[in-house]
């Protein structure tokens, strides 16, 4: 498989990658390195992982990071209630040998596999570690250990190693700088907003009901909004939302009035909406033509 072939495979499942994304995914796959995706919100970091799983026909395992996430939520946990029940059942059955009873408690059947362990056990698969910047530093160190070894040691059970390393995609919105040690292990890719033609293609691909004309109008309006220097420039996710909103309303064209009433689908700050309206980005939209 070449990067171009991988791009085609991604294209077939509805994700339109540029050369950079295709090369990044290709290298991640062949070098067995995690792919660290950073970029503005809504540039398709998470959907890349989803698309990769579908294109390669692998299961997707997702780990959503948040503040305070720890090993019991990410890796594994012991099923205390079941262990307790098991112990009670043993007691009820008659006199128990303490060592034997304890040994029977720490077996695989009482182990709850959380996403990371699940990914190691189910490999080959695609492991998405989403918004890793939201987790604490301590969690990064722990993630680094699992990712670099592709295995995990459970004191009571021993070492669990992935037969083939999972394809790991980490995403970050840069709310916090992820530690260099983790980044060093990964391929780093910065995702930009797609160009106009690609965005139109994405809109058409994801929302088949949208006409070429409407897709073009939405994509170019969003591009103008991005150039406006807003608090939160809209991403591809927002243009998809906008197009879908227009589709739901049964509009075939984006005129100034419709744009103003559906602006909430693209801009989520009052200041941004005001700036867009006062800059006149939305006016004169009815006259805009394809290819403009």
């Amino acid at each position, binding site marked *: 498989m070449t990067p171009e072939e991988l791009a085609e495979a991604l294209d077939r499942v509805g994700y339109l990658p540029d050369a950079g994304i295709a090369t*990044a995914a290709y290298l991640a796959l062949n070098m067995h390195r995690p792919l660290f995706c950073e970029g503005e919100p809504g540039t398709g970091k998470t959907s890349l992982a989803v698309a990769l799983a579908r294109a390669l026909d692998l299961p997707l395992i997702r780990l959503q990071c948040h503040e305070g996430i720890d090993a019991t939520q990410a890796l594994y946990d012991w099923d205390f209630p079941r262990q307790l029940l098991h112990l009670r059942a043993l007691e009820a059955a008659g006199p128990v040998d303490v060592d034997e009873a304890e040994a029977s408690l720490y077996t695989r059947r009482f182990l709850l596999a959380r996403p990371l362990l699940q990914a190691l056990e189910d490999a080959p698969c695609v492991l998405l570690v989403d918004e890793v910047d939201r987790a604490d530093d301590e969690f990064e160190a722990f993630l680094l250990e699992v990712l670099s070894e592709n295995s995990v040691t459970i004191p009571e059970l021993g070492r669990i190693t992935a037969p083939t390393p999972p394809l790991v995609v980490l995403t970050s919105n840069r709310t916090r*700088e992820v530690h260099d040690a983790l980044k*060093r292990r990964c391929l*780093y*890719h910065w995702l930009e907003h797609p160009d106009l033609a690609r965005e139109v293609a994405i809109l058409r691909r994801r929302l088949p009901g949208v006409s070429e004309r409407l897709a073009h109008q939405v994509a170019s309006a969003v591009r103008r909004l991005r150039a406006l220097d807003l608090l939160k420039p809209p991403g591809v996710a927002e243009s998809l939302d906008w197009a879908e909103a227009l589709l739901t309303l049964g509009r075939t064209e984006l005129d100034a009035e419709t744009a103003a009433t559906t602006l909430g689908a693209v801009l989520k700050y009052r200041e941004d909406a005001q700036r867009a309206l006062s800059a006149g980005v939305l006016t004169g939209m009815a006259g805009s033509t394809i290819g403009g």
Partner: protein
Amino acid sequence: MTGAGASTGLVGFARALRHGGVACGPERVQAFVAAVDHLDLGRRDHVYWAGRLTLCSEPDDLPRYDAAFAAWFGGVTPQKPGRRTRQTSHLAALTNGEAKRNGQAPTLKVAASDVEVLRRKDIATLSPAEKRHLRELLAALEPTPPTRRALRRTPARRGTIDPRRTLKSMLATGELTRPRHRRRTTRPRKVVLLIDVSGSMKPYADALLRFAHVVARRMPVEVCTLGTRLTRVTRQLRHRDPEQAMAAAARAVPDYEGGTRLGETIKVFLDRWGQRGAARRAVVVVCSDGWERGDTALLAEQAQRLGRLAHKVIWVNPHAGHDGYLPVQSGIVAALPHLDRLLAGHSLDTLHALLEEVRLA
């Protein structure tokens, strides 16, 4: 397969890139050579992406990478970078010139009383020997981070009742014994230092960056320099050795001793980092004399935005320590209504006071 000659060329490019301010260590270079191995060495776009994916580690690296790639491999980069390419200049280390000129000067033995004088003396008026001594004193600072309440609770002697532990002890003994308590834990609060390195701040910039280095070694902190543009130097200041950290920072900052566009650079900071999390609930310290060359209305707007995001905004102005100082500089006037504190920062003592203010924030 890459031959020995080709990989030497790749390593050479990586070295040029490092010189251009991208911190790519040997491990990254190894990954670069391995990545090219998987691709087609003869294809320019393949080499470009292999390098960008393995050698870069933050968006700031990308324009530097593009410039270095164009310089090394000639011609234009395969993909036009999305943002304006910034010029990269190779400045001498902030301290090199001074160190060279005074390299032969004998080390001065400074007595305790001299230390007291030095502590109060304006950094701008220090002699080279005093400056060296100041560096030692700065390195000896022991800052403590400000704290915030954490989500987690921990067992404590008093506080709210901990139902889980109380219940557990009841189960163990079969009767209600002593109720157990718990309280919230604390975690260090983020600190952001924005340091003006424009021409008017020249006498203080080096000391303030060293101060930032000391602080960065003790607490979670983001450091950016303000000038005609914004440069994030947190990574560069992570070097343990102050001289190395200063040299790395100097390489990364292209607008040292240039002009100031406070409003614009603070806006870039908020857009790129602040709003997403770096400034949220953080203690933000802006070190600047407040001489704004740009639009003060923009600065006022951004200061207000910063004030809304941050826990506390402290403005440190070296000139505020001088006798008869009045906050009349255009920038200060614009930002003043949105600040929590305006402090002096012209001497070691005032920097000490700043640390105390940050700790209690």
